[in-house]
């Protein structure tokens, strides 16, 4: 449904280099990467707000690269909602009806799905963040766009509202099956909502695949770190394991801590202990480098370790993830 081919654009110091990816009809596609990676530039180029220096964009097989935004059949939701402040909630949602007709039964259906019936007569300044984003979603969906663009829609919300809205977005997608492109820097959102996606960093696509592929088989140390695989080492550290990639990674939750040395254990010194509420994070200075471990066993950590203590750790060789070097 969306084909992005060799897209490049320069904006001041920033540039996108040969971005290509494809979103299939009805798919929920995620563009994710750290802040400043260029995700928003890709989205605004697809929306037609920015015109690329090179490359092509096709929506539903139709070339739209140089088309005006209003001719593209897309709708966009921003992190800061961008509601029209001089219009009521209802007027905001009905804004696009002057140009498109989704049928008269669509408005009440959308309003009830999003649970925003009671706030129809209010102005945006009197809404909470969650309500504003619901209105913004409704306004965009109201024109039944071919392509639905979500620019970090959850980033400005409190965590409990964020969780609820994340479920709402998933439900809307299941209900309407609209082709969706969402950008986020949160792997949690990406994993929960996305079918497939691309990791973007410094204006380039680093990896494309299903969420599981990216999560379980990151193709570079950067992607590995980004998806929470905090322990990435050069493969020669584990030369006895005969690894065929230049890097390996181990998830912090797969590291087990011991007080006593065992034949299979590695050794180090505790340098940080952080209580994260539902789990503990322990950072170890080991011969192979900095190792991060997670554990739910707060009592065990408190009783046995403090900063500066020697510590031994093991992991199952099955949990070692192979990471090819990025060759972009």
């Amino acid at each position, binding site marked *: 449904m969306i084909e992005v081919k060799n897209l490049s654009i320069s904006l001041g110091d920033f540039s996108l280099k040969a971005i290509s990816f494809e979103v299939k009809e009805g798919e929920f596609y995620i563009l994710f990467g750290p802040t400043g990676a260029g995700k928003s530039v890709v989205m*605004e180029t697809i*929306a*037609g*707000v920015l015109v690329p220096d090179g490359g092509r964009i096709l929506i539903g097989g139709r070339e739209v690269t140089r088309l*005006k*935004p*209003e001719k*593209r059949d*897309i*709708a*966009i939701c*921003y992190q*800061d909602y*961008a509601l*029209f*402040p*001089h219009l009521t909630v209802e007027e905001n949602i009905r*804004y*696009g009806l*002057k*140009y*498109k007709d989704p049928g008269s039964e669509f408005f009440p259906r959308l309003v009830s799905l999003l649970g925003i019936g009671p706030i129809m007569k209010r*102005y*945006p*300044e009197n809404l909470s963040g969650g309500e504003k984003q619901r209105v913004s979603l409704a*306004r*965009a969906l*109201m*024109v039944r*766009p071919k392509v639905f*663009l979500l620019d970090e829609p959850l980033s400005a919300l409190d965590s409990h509202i964020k969780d609820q809205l994340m479920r709402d977005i998933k439900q809307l997608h299941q209900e309407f099956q609209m082709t969706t492109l969402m950008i986020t820097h949160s792997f949690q959102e990406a994993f929960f909502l996305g079918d497939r996606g691309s990791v973007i960093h410094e204006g380039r696509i680093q990896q494309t695949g299903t969420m599981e592929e990216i999560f379980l088989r990151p193709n570079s140390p950067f992607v590995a770190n980004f998806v929470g695989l905090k322990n990435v080492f050069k493969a020669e550290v584990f030369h006895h394991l005969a690894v065929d990639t230049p890097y390996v990674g181990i998830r912090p939750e797969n590291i087990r801590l011991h007080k006593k040395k065992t034949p299979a254990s590695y050794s180090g010194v505790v340098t940080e202990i952080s209580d994260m509420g539902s789990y503990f994070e322990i950072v170890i200075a080991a011969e192979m480098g900095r190792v991060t471990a997670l554990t739910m066993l707060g009592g065990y950590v408190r009783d046995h370790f403090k900063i500066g203590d020697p510590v031994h750790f093991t992991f199952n060789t099955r949990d070692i993830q192979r990471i090819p070097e990025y060759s972009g």
Partner: protein
Amino acid sequence: MSGRMEKLYIFSLLSGWVIIFFVAFPIINTFTWTDPALVIEAMKDPQILKVIFRSMRTATITTAITALFAIPFAYYVVRHDFKYKKFVESVIDIPMVMPHTVAGIALLTVLSPKSFFGRFLVANGIEVLGTEIAIVIAMAFVSLPLMFDAAKEAFKWIPPRLENVSRSLGASHWSTFVRITLPLASKDLISGMIITWARAISEFGAVIMLAYHPMIAPTLIYERYTTYGMTYAVPVTVILLILSLLIFIILRLVSVNQFRKGV
């Protein structure tokens, strides 16, 4: 705030009283200087009324013309970055720092029959100097920067994202401007026009160099003062002052833009 008063604030408050006195006293005193009967008589004087209406008419035409040109260009400037943008903005602001007689002379170098453009006008039978056209030109020259800067401020706070969303929903650029940008900017644009109007109606220096006659209100006050003294100048002054205060009150009432918050 606690009951404690910082010494710095004591000084700040004292300077506030000095400023208020400095501004308000001459204004209030103007009203007490003359006999109200003279003011009422002045209001009935056809010559004075004609001059005041001419002032209002030329200031209104000036405001309309400057708005027509300044608003579209201000919108472009706010929404685009281009080479020499700061320079272009500065050029438009120059009349604000020019002494008004200097502005008048600068305009005369263009409009005088001795200049190339002036000769062209005379040759084609177009009379500018000493007409209301000259008044409008002088007023526009000095008040255009105010309209331009006010229009820039009016557009600057409106996030481009609102326009992006509107266009993605199917509205054309023009339709977006009419449905989103203009309603959000209108209050600021109206207060900009009122400031421009006030600036235009108060212009004296540049106007008399292009057109001593037909007379506008500031010229009439000046002439009455230099020829007959205060007794004849003050009644006209009071009328113009009341007019200015009325405009000022209207400006205060319309200039609160409630949409700015919450964006």
